């Protein structure tokens, strides 16, 4: 996998090798590398999960993730950050997303890494469908934050039936 651009986000369809990214991002000025992995859990809201399907609006997701990285670089004293999100079918225990941050000091790396994953969950156009023994549902998702531009509902155009 080409890693010429580390200050950027990627969407992949194969297993994420987090330690490989962590090793490649490292630079002699770094005193801390913080790596977060989001992992597919075997249960969700009391139901046993079989597997997940992730889908993305690829180009927009990469643009949004790159935007988050740029914000993190300006808000936190970090040197570098990378986000890798996997899409397609993921099994229990597999890594769906990795956020890796490098900085001189650990406090900023922890803070930036947390901020990146919390922000990613709110604005990046990626969705997951959860498959259970007795059916499948699209995960409800978090409400869009107030600063995201959104259409107003058009109540006069609503269908009559409910």
């Amino acid at each position, binding site marked *: 996998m080409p890693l010429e651009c580390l200050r950027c986000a990627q969407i992949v369809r194969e297993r994420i090798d987090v330690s490989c990214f962590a090793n490649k991002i490292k630079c002699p000025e770094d005193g801390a590398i913080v790596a977060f992995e989001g992992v597919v859990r075997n249960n969700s809201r009391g139901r046993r999960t079989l597997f997940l399907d*992730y889908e993305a609006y690829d180009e927009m997701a990469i643009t949004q993730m790159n935007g988050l990285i740029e914000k993190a670089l300006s808000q936190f004293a970090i040197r570098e950050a990378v986000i890798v999100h996997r899409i397609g079918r993921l099994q229990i225990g597999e890594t769906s997303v990795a956020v890796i941050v490098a900085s001189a000091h650990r406090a900023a790396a922890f803070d930036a890494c947390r901020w990146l994953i919390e922000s990613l*969950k709110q604005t990046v156009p990626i969705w997951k469908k959860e498959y259970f023994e007795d059916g499948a549902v699209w995960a409800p998702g*978090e409400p869009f934050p107030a600063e995201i531009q959104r*259409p107003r*509902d058009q109540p006069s155009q609503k269908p009559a039936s409910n």
Partner: protein
Amino acid sequence: MQVRVLFFGVLKDLAGQSSDSLTLPEHATLGDVLAHYQTRIVGLGNLSASLAMSVNQQYAASETQLRSGDEIAFLPPVSGGLN
């Protein structure tokens, strides 16, 4: 003018398709596209308050004026990352 419309997540299931091509009058807005599909996709009305839309991969509001060739997407609340 003609625009391309994409549906993602649960909205794709409701629409029965992942993409559509729509012919609109000049000066149509994003709100006009939402209104168009609200009358055609059962269940979309109930989700309108929570969804977002984009024009050329940027989140956009109802007033956004569209141009020929624009790519519009219906985006349910996102659920990437972890559980």
